[in-house]
């Protein structure tokens, strides 16, 4: 439990280092000292970099690599934070952000956009919208029935997820098999190569805001995970706070799909690792999840880019790295819950 306080500076340092080192990776490798020299010149105007190199490195770092790495940071943090929040809210350590169908809905939206529209913006809007629609359906199903809200929400999520998975199959079936189908399939595997500075800014702001809000609300998560009645007896407006947290988690996760398609497993694995490190107290756990998730996704993206001459979709890499890792730590992770 003591480890928690010292971990923040350590993790922040690791995050900065990972970001820096990852900037040097790529088809056009840059030596680490060269990169330092570039940024010293760029930011502090210290030292000297030849104009030609300066422009080359400028576009390489700032236009290509940095947006991609920042996107990895945002996505990793968002998925981990929403996963941890869901696990506490639903009193179940095996829950992931996809529980209420957000990823299924968003995938359907993306596929729908790719088939019926040429505009990339439409695809993104549809992705985001259907992510929310799927969660609204889950919540709606839970609301029209009386009973154990948590159980009903989980069932609502199963129904909504199944619905959008079948709708996605319909879209795939009617999609043009030469152009659209491969595009949809590749999108669903996830990838950070479409990210540019503009979209990063548009998506990054709401994402960062929701992460901060969830961290601010994290004090309620402990009490929520003791069950509705106890939480309400502690004076918490359970329904209200839960809906707010579901909204924030949905916002974050839907935006990750807009940025980079489907990326699985992060939201399940990272909270477990974080819990092993700092224990279950959500006030510490949630911010730690954000940092570890960010670091993890940068590394996984590096692997995706560097391992073979062709980039591997990041959704595949997260699963391939995450699953064996999870299998190995499962015994230790069990201590983090029961």
């Amino acid at each position: 439990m003591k480890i928690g306080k010292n971990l923040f500076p350590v993790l922040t340092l690791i995050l900065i280092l990972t970001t820096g080192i990852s900037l040097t990776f790529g088809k056009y490798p840059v030596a680490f000292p060269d990169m330092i020299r570039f940024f010293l010149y760029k930011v502090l105007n210290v030292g000297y970099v030849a104009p030609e190199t300066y422009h080359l490195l400028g576009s390489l770092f700032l236009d290509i690599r940095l947006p991609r790495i920042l996107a990895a940071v945002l996505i990793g943090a968002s998925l981990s934070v929403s996963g941890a929040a869901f696990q506490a809210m639903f009193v179940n350590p095996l829950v992931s952000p996809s529980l209420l169908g957000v990823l299924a809905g968003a995938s359907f939206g993306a596929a729908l956009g790719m088939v019926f529209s040429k505009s990339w913006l439409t695809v993104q809007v549809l992705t985001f919208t259907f992510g929310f629609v799927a969660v609204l359906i889950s919540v709606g199903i839970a609301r029209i029935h009386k009973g154990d809200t948590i159980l009903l929400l989980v069932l609502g999520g199963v129904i909504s997820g199944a619905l959008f998975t079948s709708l996605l199959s319909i879209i795939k079936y009617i999609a043009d098999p030469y152009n659209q189908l491969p595009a949809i399939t590749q999108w669903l595997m996830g990838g950070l190569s479409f990210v540019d500075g503009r979209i990063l800014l548009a998506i990054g702001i709401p994402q960062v805001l929701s992460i901060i809000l969830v961290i601010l609300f994290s004090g309620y998560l402990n009490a929520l995970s003791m069950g509705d009645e106890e939480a309400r007896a502690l004076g918490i407006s359970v329904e209200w706070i839960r809906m707010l947290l579901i909204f924030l988690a949905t916002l974050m996760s839907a935006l990750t799909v807009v940025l980079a398609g489907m990326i699985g497993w992060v939201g399940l694995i990272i909270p477990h690792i974080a819990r092993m490190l700092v224990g279950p107290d959500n006030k510490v756990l949630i911010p730690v999840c954000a940092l570890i998730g960010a670091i993890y996704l940068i590394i996984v993206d590096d692997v995706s880019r560097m391992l073979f001459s062709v980039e591997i979709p990041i959704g595949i890499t997260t699963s391939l790295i995450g699953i064996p890792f999870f299998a190995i730590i499962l015994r230790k992770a069990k201590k983090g819950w029961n």
Partner: protein
Amino acid sequence: MELKPLIRVEGLSFGYTQKIVLNDVNLTIAEGEIVTLLGPNGCGKSTLLKIMLGLLRPARGRVFFSDRDILHVSPKFLAKEIAYVPQIHKSSFPYAVMDIALMGRIPHKTFFFRYSKADMSIAHDALERLSISHLANRAYTEISGGERQLTLIARALAQGAKTFIMDEPASGLDYGNQLRLLDQIIKLSREGYTFIKSTHSPEHALWIADRAVMIKNGAIVSDGKCDDIINDESLFRLYNARVNVLRLNGSLRVCVPETICGCQEFAKSLWMSQDIMEPPGDMMQSKREAVPVKEDHKNAEI
């Protein structure tokens, strides 16, 4: 006792579409009382407790806390006055005992909050009062059932509430921990805390409660001082089980099921000499034919 009324339940009814759970319940609880709700499974005890906590909305009737309708006060206000001590449970996450006690501070915090030094020390004091401060950093899932129950009571203390509502607090505890729990309740009650608890064990009421409220089929069937209303007949009516309420050492009373109590000789020897340790040797054999003996000694004691 001239105590002022703290909680007033008026004409309370509650039910689901098919089933009436509570029907026109009236109850007044005074400050500092220990009130025990007795009744068979499904009689409505838990529902009544939950309505008093504001967790369930009654279909009809109202609950007043210090003359204020609890539906018209904020949940936070109520949480500062009335604390809920649930049955022990296993939480899914191994929160430290201190983390659980700190949850009691939530009603005192603003919307976005971090626990302050003051909260920490209040939570720590609460653990201290129940002599479990050495467990502060232990995981709630790894301590014993009795310790978990004390942790939940510590949370209620940290909440700052003076009224504790406990739903079958002794269930799931071993015998020693049940006794220690009752002991804590007596101690806190002397400090002015009010307890409303449900139990399956009439003896717990006889030992520590001032007052018992018997509930059957959603209605209060009797309400009064434990010594006055807990007897063979009322327990038979309540639980449909034959039990002898025997007097030991003047004031203390125990419940002994008639099937075990056996013959008149045994019941008498227990009642007159207070010699529980040496039951008559033939007690086991004479179990069955002993049913019609209870009248005389029971009348004698009341």
